[in-house]
């Protein structure tokens, strides 16, 4: 019983981290029609930033905020000075994000070395929480809470603010939005910053669970891809639901059939593609 409770919580925590990653990916895709393949690398960069920031700033949450801002800034610069030059050339943009992903991964290897770097759990959350006689790791509960909070904030941002309305207008019909005087190019930079910042902060928040190691990008990117394929491209709700589905499938896959966990990831993907190619909540046929 205890074992299954822990596995459930692990699934939820992984789902939460995936949501931080996939929400940005999905937003960027929805608005800019770019499959941003740097997203895994930005997550890893965030985790490594976290290890360095924590040497001077002792608080994990503050570190996540600083690291997220730093990664977001880098993402914004990349969008403004590289991707912008390739406006309209979608395949070119994707290939550039791929190239930058390789560069970032190698830079991390040069700067932080090849050994995994742990990120300590905040002392306040090291004691397990006891609910109904079962012990739950407090930190993982906190991750789930944060993911849900971020989800609610993003939802409010998209549905209740002027910025969100502009983004939605851009997603629905970019040319018409531009004709109405919405600064779509600035919107692109904003959304790219936001997506990169979420990924970077996710890397640090995920640090106490996954730590920072070379190859973290390659581990996270396919999961995020499968999440957005499952949830539907450009859909926030889809990213949320997809993240937790994949969190469960992957965690229980690893627990029950450790050798074939990756094959099990196929199943939800194939089912969705067979019966609903645009994803569970997607607006576009991909």
């Amino acid at each position: 019983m205890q074992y299954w409770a822990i596995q459930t919580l692990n699934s939820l925590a992984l789902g939460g981290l995936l949501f931080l990653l996939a929400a940005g990916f999905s937003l960027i895709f929805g608005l800019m029609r770019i499959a941003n393949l740097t997203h895994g690398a930005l997550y890893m960069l965030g985790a490594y930033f976290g290890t360095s920031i924590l040497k001077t700033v002792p608080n994990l949450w503050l570190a996540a905020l600083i690291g997220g801002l730093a990664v977001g800034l880098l993402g914004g610069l990349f969008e403004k000075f590289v991707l912008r030059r390739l406006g309209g050339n979608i395949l070119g943009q994707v290939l550039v994000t791929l190239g930058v992903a390789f560069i970032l991964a190698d830079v991390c290897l040069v700067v932080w070395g090849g050994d995994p770097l742990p990120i300590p759990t905040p002392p306040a959350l090291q004691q397990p929480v006891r609910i109904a006689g079962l012990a739950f790791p407090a930190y993982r509960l906190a991750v789930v809470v944060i993911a849900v909070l971020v989800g609610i904030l993003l939802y409010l941002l998209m549905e209740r603010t002027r910025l969100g309305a502009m983004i939605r207008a851009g997603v629905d019909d970019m040319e018409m939005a531009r004709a109405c005087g919405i600064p779509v190019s600035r919107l692109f930079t904003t959304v790219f910053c936001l997506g990169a910042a979420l990924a970077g902060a996710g890397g640090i928040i995920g640090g106490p669970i996954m730590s920072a190691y070379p190859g973290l990008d390659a581990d996270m990117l396919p999961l995020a891809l499968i999440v957005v394929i499952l949830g539907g491209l450009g859909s926030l709700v889809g990213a949320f639901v997809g993240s937790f589905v994949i969190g469960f499938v992957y965690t229980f896959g690893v627990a029950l059939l450790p050798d074939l966990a990756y094959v099990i990831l196929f199943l939800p993907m194939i089912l969705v593609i067979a019966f609903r190619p645009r994803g569970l909540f997607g607006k576009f046929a991909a």
Partner: protein
Amino acid sequence: MKRGIGYGIAALALVGVPFFSGEYYINLASQIFIFAIFAASINLLLGYGGLPTLGHAAYLGVAAYVPALLHLKLGLGHWISAPAALFGTTLMACAFGLIALRATGLGFLMLTLALSQVLWGTALRWVSMTDGDNGLRGPARPFNLDDATSFYYFALAVTAVSIWLMARFVASPFGATLQGTRDQPRRMSALGHDVWMIRWVTFIYAGFWGGVSGLLFIYYHKYIHPVSLSLANSAEGLLAVIAGGSGTVAGPIVGAAVVMLLKNYVSAYVERWNMLMGFVFVLIVVFMPEGLVPGVRRLWRRFRSVT
């Protein structure tokens, strides 16, 4: 006529390589051939079908793993393992095509990437089967091709036949309809062509040739590691196609040579191949999006019109 002479000279030069170069360069040339088949098979999808695949390493990797596994686990020889590898990858391409071709464009790219990453993760984690990060030792080369020169001629022959068959494919009426689906899928559909079927057949054909390159790969290296299934490997193939010029027969061959030379020379001095590959990717996309072969051809035409 002029073309024929050009091909003749190229053929003579390739046949002559082992006579005037050392073993290092002979082996490097063999690797370029293997990589050229891989890149050419990506070019079928990207260049002629307009389908950007980022998961083609799956076919190379599986076709390399199958003979290694059949040899190690069941002790089967080449006469069974080689056809099994090619048949297996072709069958896999049939199945993956059904999934990936639910989408085109970026959706297709993401689906192919996700599918190949699943295989990569499986190869890395299914330690009892694939020995994970240690990789697998492959069987000895067939036909006693153990020295560099005889393997070179073997690879040259296979590559020549492969490239020729792929060139025939795109020059055929079917290839013309394929390029039609790339440029005007709706019109092709209105003209009564089954666009999806054309793409699927091409996907399977490209998967088969990816498998051929994988078979040569395991014969050459006698070793296979999950990295061959990784995104980096798919990206290298894609880079070769784009660097050389997608949608041309010569492009992927030139691109494969450039990428392989770069990789071998640079890795000899610094260990930063991935970073360099990333930079080359960015530079080519930003400054030379059409690739080397069309770029040089355009310069040549301009040069001729001046003189």
